């Protein structure tokens, strides 16, 4: 029943929705970023952050700060918020929140498997994993030699198991395989999440499907650009695109045969929402594409807060926090390395 969520949404979701909107008020504003950009050292950054939600997290850090500490603490704040929401949530919100963490789980699996392939220490890798995507048996991922073993030994017990059905093969793991696995998993995950949101119905379905469609389209473009000049065939590339979104299906057919960035641009120009993104970039320039996409994503996520009585605010909040962590990482790196002239290149302002 579209439009009638207002009558019953608050039974289960009202309290948490209000909380997450409170969290949103704690996101750094343009004024905060301006202050942060003036910083001379990481201690200044810490001082500015003390007045924000990150204050308690950074308060007890000893003085020679590292960029990694700041990023770690920011992530910690996000994880604490997430866990707080997850413990308070009831069905179907708890499932919805769990879906949000699956993306990190996929990234972690890929990180561990790639790391093991390059003979890195497992503990070192575990520290690099995103805490939102941790699961119990993650450390044992290192034993797997091929995808079938990976599935059978470890992942069958995780929520990712259903997504593996498309990529079980006995081939030995190599960089190419792993990257294809990551994208196949992500495709299955996005499609599953999309179906779940459609099942929820109402404003949640409208807004979430829009956000997920954008995510799927962005991944399609990324896959295309990254696979230009590699041995990935056109059919294989086509298989990695998610089966929904604005580009599905005709845009995908065109993207699948693109050979250079300008052809991608030609394809995307036919879609008005993406045309404006590509219009910001000068010809032949693909480096700034990520930032342009991030800016568009942040804009869309902020719009999710315009409507009440739906779940997309939880998704939007977590994504915005992640963007903020990326911003802070960039700022701290620039400050630590004395590259203040480049500081504005990497920040995506949220408000």
């Amino acid at each position, binding site marked *: 029943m579209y439009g009638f969520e207002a*009558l019953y949404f608050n039974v289960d979701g*009202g*309290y*948490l*929705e*209000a*909380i997450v909107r*409170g969290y949103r*008020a704690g996101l750094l504003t343009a004024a905060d970023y301006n202050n942060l950009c003036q910083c001379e050292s990481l201690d200044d950054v810490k001082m500015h952050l003390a007045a924000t939600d990150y204050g308690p997290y950074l308060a007890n850090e000893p003085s020679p700060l590292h960029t990694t500490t700041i990023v770690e603490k920011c992530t910690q704040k996000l994880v604490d918020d997430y866990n707080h929401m997850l413990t308070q949530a009831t069905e179907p919100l708890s499932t919805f929140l769990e879906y949000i963490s699956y993306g990190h789980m996929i990234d972690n699996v890929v990180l561990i498997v790639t790391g093991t392939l390059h003979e890195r220490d497992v503990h070192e890798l575990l520290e690099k994993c995103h805490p939102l995507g941790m699961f119990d048996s993650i450390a044992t991922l290192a034993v797997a030699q091929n995808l079938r073993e990976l599935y059978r030994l470890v992942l069958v017990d995780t929520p990712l198991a259903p997504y593996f059905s498309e990529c079980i093969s006995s081939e030995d793991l190599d960089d190419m395989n792993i990257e294809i696995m990551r994208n196949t998993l992500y495709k299955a995950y996005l499609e599953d999440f999309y179906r779940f949101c459609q099942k929820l119905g109402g404003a949640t379905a409208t807004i979430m499907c829009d956000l997920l469609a954008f995510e799927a389209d962005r991944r399609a473009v990324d896959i295309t650009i990254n696979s230009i000049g590699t041995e990935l065939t056109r059919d294989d590339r086509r298989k990695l695109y998610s089966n929904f979104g604005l580009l599905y299906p005709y845009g995908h057919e065109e993207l699948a045969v693109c050979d250079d960035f300008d052809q991608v641009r030609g394809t995307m120009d036919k879609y008005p929402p993406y045309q404006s993104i590509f219009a910001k970039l000068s010809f032949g320039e693909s480096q700034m594409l990520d930032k342009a996409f991030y800016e568009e994503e942040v804009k869309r996520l902020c719009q999710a807060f315009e409507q009440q009585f739906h779940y997309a605010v939880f998704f939007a909040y977590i994504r915005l926090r992640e963007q903020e962590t990326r911003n802070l990482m960039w700022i701290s790196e620039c400050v630590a390395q004395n590259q203040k002239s480049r500081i504005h290149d990497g920040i995506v302002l949220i408000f």
Partner: protein
Amino acid sequence: MGFVLWWREWTHAFLYMSPFVFSAIGIALSVGISVLGAAWGIYITGSTLIGAAIRAPRITSKNLISVIFCEAVAIYGVIVAIILQTKLENTTQPFDPESMRAGYSLFASGIIVGFANLVCGLCVGIIGSSCALSDAQNSTLFVKILVIEIFGSALGLFGVIVGIIMSSQASWPSAPI
């Protein structure tokens, strides 16, 4: 043919129902459904309010107004129920057309007041929850949304007015001399 007979039987069933039954149901609906609307509105506002107040404790006392607006809806229901109840008099001729008319008018005014207050309570509750959220973000918005809320709560009053006018038509035949 069968349908006509069936219809006639059922309309007759209404004729054989005592007007006191109608009056009693009308009074019950006026207070019962109003309270349902008020309670519904209060939980919509209240659950949002406690969530929003965690981050911005200053909003709690201001936003109690939203809860009071919802509460007022229940009070309308109680007032009308009392008014209707005073209209209910004893009569020796319960199936006199005048008694029937009194019974129906009390029944109708109960339904009017009940459902008007139900949707009014919902309306005020939903606006109240948005009011709490926006007040937590930006305190200048509170008064602006409060105006909308006042208009929302006026809807219930329309029902009350029509209900009272309607019930004033109810009169019971006095006993034959």
